[in-house]
């Protein structure tokens, strides 16, 4: 049994493209834990989307700010916090409506938060004085999400 979680921390510059670094770092921690390739793919997309949001919306592309990704290995799950220096998320994930998108009634974008929620087991958005974070949890023994 692991008493203290084993923590890996990654500090990224606020630059689009670096979400891939977070993606591969998270994937390699998940692989060490024995996650299946399917679940590693789910995690990669979720972490990348959360980092893109931290870079674009949280830090508003301000290169003086940073993004911090904290990966905590627990007994049966991996927790990933993606922290930016912005005001945080104060809405629930919008469920994209492909018919409305195709009709031009809804922006073709706006799918990141929905994907994160669909691909991992738990999501939470927290705002603090010093910044905000998305907290993602993925369980080791859960099936790959197919819904």
């Amino acid at each position, binding site marked *: 049994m692991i008493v203290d979680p084993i923590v890996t921390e990654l500090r990224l510059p606020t*630059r*689009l*493209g*670096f*979400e*891939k670094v977070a*993606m591969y770092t998270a994937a390699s921690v998940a692989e060490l834990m024995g996650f299946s390739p*399917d679940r590693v*793919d*789910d995690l990669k*997309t979720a972490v*990348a*989307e959360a980092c*893109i949001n931290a870079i674009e919306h949280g830090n508003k592309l301000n290169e003086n700010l940073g993004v911090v990704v904290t990966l905590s290995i627990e007994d049966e799950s991996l927790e990933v916090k993606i922290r930016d220096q912005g005001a945080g998320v104060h809405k629930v994930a919008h469920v*994209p*409506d*492909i*018919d409305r*998108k*195709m009709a*031009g009634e809804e*922006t*073709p*974008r706006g*799918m*990141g938060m*929905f*994907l994160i929620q*669909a691909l991992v087991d738990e999501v939470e958005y927290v705002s603090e004085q010093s910044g905000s974070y998305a907290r993602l949890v993925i369980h080791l023994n859960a099936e790959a*999400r*197919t*819904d």
Partner: protein
Amino acid sequence: MVTQTKTKVDENGDLAVLRFEGDITSHSEEAVLGKYRALNAATKKILLDFSKVPYLNSSGIALVIQLLMAANKASQKVVCFGLSAHFVKVFTMLGLAKYTSLHADETAAREAVG
């Protein structure tokens, strides 16, 4: 610091194949929509080849949706092939399978487009 997506275009009568190479992200507008807009006017059937795309993010998928919107208006049929199992799942979750079909390989895609 962002690798450019390349697109090879094969045109043959009313059929066009867009072969993407590299990640599809917000930086891929020219590779996806630019190449689509440059297709010849006779194009009725479009194959999108994702077999050399290791990673798509939601902004990249938004470009694919914009391509599907334009093709829908122009009464062109679009089918996709070469997506990994993960991205087949993601496209399906997002509802894209309603406006395009997702095939394992080019042979299956060509059959589907008729």
